[in-house]
């Protein structure tokens, strides 16, 4: 037994056999997941690209190659400028608010306080609730005749804005709901980030006579920067994908005031059946998200190599 095992050819054969078994195990373990991604992610991404060059309407049997026509149509589409502007406004304002309010909440709640953990959990709760359900509750809250905001403002003698039917107020209304839903997530992440900053850094700063502002500026902010970077990118990605709130509350309206890229994709694909143009929006959205995710991965790499 030992003799044969020591024979080089035999041991190589055994190694190969074992490796071959390991590979099978690997395929059995990781294969289904990757196969499903192949069917429902990689292939459709390519199909989406192909559809963006076609004039198909989902119902007819005709599917003709039309080159870049859909791309030209989208560029010339009078709504497209509005849609892009809405997307930028919605993403930048909601990400900024979530980041700043979350930072404030994280800093204030990161002390020894009674009820701190309860407050953290309460703040986090909207994050796990259905976006559709939250949107419905907020339609009632925003109702200019019977809603919560009307009820609060009435004794003060202020008229409630006509939130969801006024083109100037609809996008801010959507931003408010988004921030309400995601603020707790940012706060939880900030608190975790703050707790990862070594306490002796603060002690050292104190001994050196650094003021509260200087400690914040030179210890807290640098210590939080990786967490902030993570939050900026994940918030941008999730705001790009914020569909349920918009579909339930405004359906992109009034007069396109809340029509963002993701809503336009749905509208073109599943309401107008303009599959080709929906494909173009899909590619635009993909390129934007791809860019943001690449940034995030570069940050992950840095984290790993410094760890």
């Amino acid at each position, binding site marked *: 037994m030992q003799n044969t095992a020591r024979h080089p050819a035999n041991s190589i054969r055994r190694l190969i056999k074992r*490796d071959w078994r*390991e590979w099978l*195990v*690997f395929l*059995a*373990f*990781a294969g*289904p*997941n*990757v196969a*499903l*991604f192949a*069917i*429902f*992610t*990689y292939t*459709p*991404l390519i199909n*989406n690209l192909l559809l963006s060059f076609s004039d198909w309407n989902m119902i007819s049997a005709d599917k003709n190659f039309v080159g870049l026509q859909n791309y030209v149509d989208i560029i010339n589409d009078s709504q497209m400028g509005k849609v892009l502007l809405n997307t930028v406004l919605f993403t930048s304002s909601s990400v900024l608010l979530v980041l700043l309010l979350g930072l404030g*909440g994280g800093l*204030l709640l990161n*002390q020894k*306080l009674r*009820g701190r953990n309860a*407050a953290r*959990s309460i*703040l*986090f709760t909207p994050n*796990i*609730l*259905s*976006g*559709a*359900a939250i949107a*419905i509750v*907020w339609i*009632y*809250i925003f109702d200019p005749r*019977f809603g*919560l905001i009307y009820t609060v403002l009435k004794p003060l003698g202020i008229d409630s804005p006509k939130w969801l039917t006024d083109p100037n107020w609809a996008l801010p209304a959507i931003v408010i709901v988004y921030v*309400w839903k995601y603020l707790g997530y940012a706060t*939880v*992440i900030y608190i975790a*980030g703050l707790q*990862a900053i070594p306490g002796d850094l603060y002690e050292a700063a104190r001994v050196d006579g650094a003021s*509260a502002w200087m400690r914040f500026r030179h210890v807290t902010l640098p210590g939080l920067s*990786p*967490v902030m970077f993570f939050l900026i990118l994940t918030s941008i990605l999730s705001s790009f994908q914020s*569909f349920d709130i918009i*579909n*339930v509350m405004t359906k992109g309206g009034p007069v396109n005031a809340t029509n963002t890229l993701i809503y336009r*994709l*749905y509208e073109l694909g599943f309401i107008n059946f303009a599959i080709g143009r929906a*494909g173009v929006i*899909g590619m635009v959205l*993909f390129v934007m*998200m791809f860019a943001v995710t690449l940034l995030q*991965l570069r940050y992950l790499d840095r*984290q790993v190599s410094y*760890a």
Partner: protein
Amino acid sequence: MSARTQTETLPTPRRAASRSMRAEETLSKALGYSAIVFTVLIIGIPVFWLITGALKTNREIFSPNPQWLPSQVMFDNFTKAWEGAPFGRYYINSFITTILGAACEITMGITTAYALVFVRFPKRDWVFVLLLVALMVPEEVVIVPNYLTIANWHLVNTYAGIVLPGASIAFGTFLLRQYFRSLPPELIDAARVDGAGHMRTMLSIIVPIAAPAVATAGLLSVVAKWNDYLWPLIVTSTADMRTLPIGISWLLDQEGNTEWGVVMAATLFVVVPVVLVFLYAQRFLVSGIAAGAVKG
């Protein structure tokens, strides 16, 4: 300038420092408690409006002078909502699709992460990169081609059609892979020397040790599936296949602006189960999410 004069009038600099520190601490505590109060109000008032709305009569809701509290507690809106739409059916659909979807995700998350960390394979890293690519493709971008695939397979308006496109998992795989990598390799070596196969090593050693990470990934899956909106909206075509989030948005289209009490009651149907799960398991969810972010 003023700081210096103050220091001079005080007995020793050290006491001055400790006094200003104490003042600072009191101030920051006070701000902290006001943040807690603010948090409770900002989240609590909309939730209060939801719950009281579900308990109010139409006359109370549509009064020009809305009151904060219903004059009497009544549950008519709940019975009306339950009868107004097939909520029993919505619940069954939501439970089935959530459990199937989350079970697929968590099983494949564990096996894929285990394979990526502990099983030898040529170009294993390439598989990892493939999963990264999947993470970059949002569901919404591939929704039209996926609808066509599901239609070709005659799975529109079926449970399989709702579950399949979202059954694979990238983010949870990363979460678990990260956790598995932090485990001491001696553990696995010992099990392998004892003659345990990969399946047994995974189930009886790795999964129990990684239970917190598995719980976090599982909860994230359950919550995401329960709340999923766009795909079930597109792939279901009859009332008896709708899940809860789709069901309530249909109810809103029918009764919105006329029956707010009923709509709020129905919204509670959707929200309450998740809140109960969260109350029970929030420490896994909150700490797991936080750990994932801080470790990167």
